[in-house]
């Protein structure tokens, strides 16, 4: 039978379990669809928001004029500066992080000319001022207006202690026009990093009007690698609705002469006027503040695309920070669980980064103004159309959804509302869903695969055990050793069933073989009674009729009866022998002696038969019942004589093979037919007969086999390689006085 090559059950089950991988794939597909759905939902929501805000602002042109004395229709002129709305109050500590993304909107200023004053005729003597660069930003939050100066300056000169002049060091000049219209000049100067001193100055910036430091304003200076930063805070009440302002950075580079090197104005250069500060309309801000959402930025722009108000921030909340690597604590179990969880998350994160777009923690959407984005939708909104769009953030890290709605006043467009939101939220939601699904699925998959592996291993183990038990239940000669398989006999499932039915089968088979083995005995027993009748009748007949007693027919009848009797004995011999051997006592003797004695004795009773004995080693002590060994020799010699060619000798060869003594009985003559060398030891298997008078039931070699296996030995038959005879090899384990060394 050809067996198809195949996978093991375990592999098959694992392959089936791989189907579970469909679940995460399906989730992936689902989540992808969900993403587009969520995005469109988000878009709708944004559009609604923008419309809602626009609705509030419809027909209220005052929002676009309040607080700012500028004509709505007038474009931004040179001497106006725009203060950016800041997300929060600024701590004056030199740390620029609280400026948020607005810090990036800072504009750079360079010195246009160096001062040409009589005090400094040798310009060449002082270091080149090309290095000076000032990044400046004006912003506001709540009641304060803030100014930021990032100064790149190779030589930072502080005010010398005890040096009263306030223009002999790097300083900042601020000119404010107070509500009354009077200009006030302030100098910001520091003798060391930290809080700066602020002095109200005279019109020439030469001397402080009062020696007192000013406390309304506050400024902080901090050193950087490149130069220094200054943060300035001005209370809003110091600025009227028509606030004018001018700020100048004064740079001193020569630590010896302390000459003023250059002045860089960060406000538009205008001789006759100070700059006007544009801040967003508070009314609009108030309205928008009510609509403020943490993840949404709302702009209101006027017709000139100038932002009138901005609330909210587009940066979504910080992405869930990665877990810290757990530290060993008291409970090892907890620690182990934490560690596993930690690495599990890391691995998952790696996996996810390949599957989905991760939301960007903080992408930079630093539109300095609406027009810089140059977005069509603003144009469209100002043209009176509702529109929405998606665009990448300026650093291409994320997608920004935008929706714009025009604000009408009658038929005229006052401005537009723009609402922006990053898709980060959707992405994050998508990711968390996907992460959940995948991690759960992965966990389930691992568990299921593990369980299947375990289950399959157990199953195969059980099947293998059952197979081995089944294999071992019947020995090489087909005899049943075990009728009951212990493997899985008690389990209630199919394997248990199989085990039990195999046991059942073996039981029935062994009953059958028992019946078969008992058959000769039963047969002999049944035949012996009628045979006895014939026998006794013949006797009585000869007694009753003396004339018959001499008849040759009576002789032949008696002879026939005797032959039947002999057959019966033969049949029962094996069965009787098995019983008898159980009670036989074994003794240790030299096998070589026994064979020599045997051959001597046999030669005496059968002088015609020639023997040849070859002894390779002696003594060969075995522990056995000598009678039975002699019986084995009887049978083997009988058999050899039966098949020996006339006139040839029977050869005995006795040798030691490892731990066995082996007797070879060799005869020349006909050889065994193919396939007979094993079968010949089975009961009732005979190779035919030479003498018609001599019965050959084929029990003799079976008896040899019985005796051999009873003594732990074996017997095999094979043809001589010269193909002119047969060799029977009978082996017995050698006697070992110390079985522990075996």
């Amino acid at each position, binding site marked *: 039978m050809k067996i198809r090559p195949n996978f093991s059950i375990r592999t098959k089950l694992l392959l089936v379990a791989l189907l579970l991988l469909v679940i995460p794939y399906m989730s992936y597909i689902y989540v992808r669809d969900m993403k587009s759905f969520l995005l469109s939902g988000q878009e709708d929501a944004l559009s609604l928001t923008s419309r809602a805000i626009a609705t509030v602002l419809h027909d209220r042109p005052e929002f676009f004029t309040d607080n700012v004395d500028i004509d709505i229709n007038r474009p931004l002129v040179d001497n106006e500066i725009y203060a950016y709305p800041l997300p929060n109050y600024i701590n004056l500590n030199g740390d620029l992080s609280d400026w948020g993304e607005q810090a990036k909107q800072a504009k750079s200023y360079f010195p246009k000319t160096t001062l040409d004053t009589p005090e400094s005729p040798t310009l060449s003597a002082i270091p080149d001022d090309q290095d000076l660069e000032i990044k400046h930003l004006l912003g506001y939050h709540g009641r304060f207006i803030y100014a930021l100066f990032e100064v790149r300056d190779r030589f930072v000169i502080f005010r010398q202690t005890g040096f009263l002049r306030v223009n002999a060091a790097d300083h900042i000049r601020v000119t404010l026009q107070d509500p009354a219209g009077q200009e006030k000049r302030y100098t910001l100067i520091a003798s060391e990093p930290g809080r700066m001193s602020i002095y109200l100055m005279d019109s020439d910036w030469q001397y402080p009007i009062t020696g007192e430091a000013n406390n309304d304003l506050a400024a902080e200076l901090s050193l950087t690698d490149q130069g220094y930063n200054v943060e300035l805070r001005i209370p809003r009440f110091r600025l009227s609705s028509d606030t004018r302002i001018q700020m100048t950075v004064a740079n001193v580079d020569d630590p010896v002469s302390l000459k003023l090197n250059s002045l860089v104005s960060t406000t538009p250069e205008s001789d006759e006027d100070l700059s006007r500060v544009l801040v967003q309309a508070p009314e609009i801000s108030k309205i928008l503040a009510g609509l403020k959402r943490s993840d949404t930025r709302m702009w209101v722009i006027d017709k000139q695309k100038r932002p009138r108000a901005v609330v909210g921030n587009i940066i979504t909340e910080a992405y869930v920070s990665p877990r810290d690597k757990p530290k060993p604590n008291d409970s090892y179990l907890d620690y182990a669980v934490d560690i596993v969880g930690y690495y599990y998350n890391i691995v998952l994160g790696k996996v996810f980064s390949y599957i989905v777009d991760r939301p960007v923690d903080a992408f930079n959407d630093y539109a300095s103004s609406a027009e810089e984005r140059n977005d069509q939708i603003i144009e469209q909104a100002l043209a009176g159309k509702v529109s929405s769009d998606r665009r990448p953030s300026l650093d291409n890290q994320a997608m920004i959804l935008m929706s714009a709605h025009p604000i009408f006043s009658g038929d005229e467009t006052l401005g537009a509302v723009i609402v922006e939101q990053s898709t980060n939220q959707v992405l994050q939601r998508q990711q968390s869903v996907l992460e959940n699904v995948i991690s759960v699925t992965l966990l389930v998959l691992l568990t299921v695969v593990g369980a299947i592996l375990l289950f399959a291993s157990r199953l195969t183990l059980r099947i293998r055990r059952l197979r081995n038990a089944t294999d071992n239940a019947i020995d090489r000669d087909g005899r049943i050793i075990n009728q009951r398989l212990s493997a899985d006999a008690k389990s209630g499932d199919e394997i248990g069933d199989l085990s039990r039915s195999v046991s059942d089968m073996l039981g029935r088979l062994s009953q059958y073989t028992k019946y078969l083995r008992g058959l000769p005995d039963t047969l*002999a*027993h*049944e035949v*012996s*009674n009628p*045979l*006895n*009748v*014939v*026998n*006794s*009748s013949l*006797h*009585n007949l000869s*007694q009753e009729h003396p004339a018959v007693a001499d008849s040759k027919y009576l002789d032949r009848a008696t002879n026939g*009866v*005797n032959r039947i*009797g*002999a057959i*019966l*004995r033969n049949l*029962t*011999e094996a*069965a*009787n*022998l098995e*019983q*008898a051997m159980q*009670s*036989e006592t074994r003794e240790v003797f030299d096998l070589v002696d*026994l064979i020599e*004695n*045997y*051959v001597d*004795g*046999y030669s*005496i*009773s059968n002088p015609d038969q020639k023997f040849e004995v070859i002894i390779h080693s002696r003594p060969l002590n075995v522990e056995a019942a*000598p*009678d039975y060994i*002699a*019986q084995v*020799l*009887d049978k083997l*010699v009988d058999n050899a004589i039966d098949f020996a060619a006339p006139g040839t000798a029977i050869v005995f060869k006795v040798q030691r093979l490892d731990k066995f003594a082996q007797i070879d009985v060799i005869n020349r003559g006909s050889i065994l037919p193919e396939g007979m060398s094993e079968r010949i030891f089975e009961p009732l298997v005979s190779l035919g007969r030479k003498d018609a008078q001599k019965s050959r039931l084929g029990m003799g070699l079976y008896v040899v086999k019985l005796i051999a296996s009873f003594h732990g030995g074996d017997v095999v038959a094979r043809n001589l390689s010269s193909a002119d005879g047969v060799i029977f090899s009978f082996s017995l384990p050698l006697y070992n006085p110390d079985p522990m060394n075996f």
Partner: protein
Amino acid sequence: MARKVAIVEDDFDQRENYADALSQSGYEVATYSNRQDALIGMQKDMPDLAILDIMLEHEMDGGFDLCRDLRALSPTLPIIFLTARDTDIDRVSGLRLDAWDYLTKPLNMQFLSVRINSLFRIVDSLAKGSSVENDSDVLVIDALTIDEDSMSIKWQGQELSLTLTEFWLIESMARHPGHVKTYENMMQITRQSYVERNTINGYIRRIRNKFKEIDPEFKNIQTVFGVGYKWNTGE
């Protein structure tokens, strides 16, 4: 007065053949076909010798049971098992029940008469009493004493409990010490129809065991492998 022999055998043909043959030999024969009849019959009329089959009609071990019952009636009654059952276990069971002999079918009828004669001789000799010492019938070889009359054998002065067959085998070997008794000789001596080497081996084994019960060092019966056995004297 003719001796009475009871035959218990469920097979009519065999039973009648035995009866005829034994009548011819001059015995008075009573035949029974089952255990109950036999027990009742023999209780009424105790025979001098009983021949029992083991399987009686439906009873697998009817003969053994009957033997036990008869032993209870008469401890000295000679009992012979004559059966087709030829296993060692049966043989041992039979002899353990104090049967005098255990024969297997098919049986040579002439041998049966001889056997019965011998048994009666033993009975007679026992009846005369062991006090009577008849030297002419006693064979002494070293520690072995064979009393031909009572068919008893002593080893080192102690009597062995032997069956008739065993007695004949020992006697035949001891009569010619040092001479090999071949299997063929011994088969004749057992006076049974079909005996094989294994049966002889079995007899010798049992005989040796009986000697060894008296003398654990007993080694006088020597196996001549492939041929037979011989009685060794001395060392």
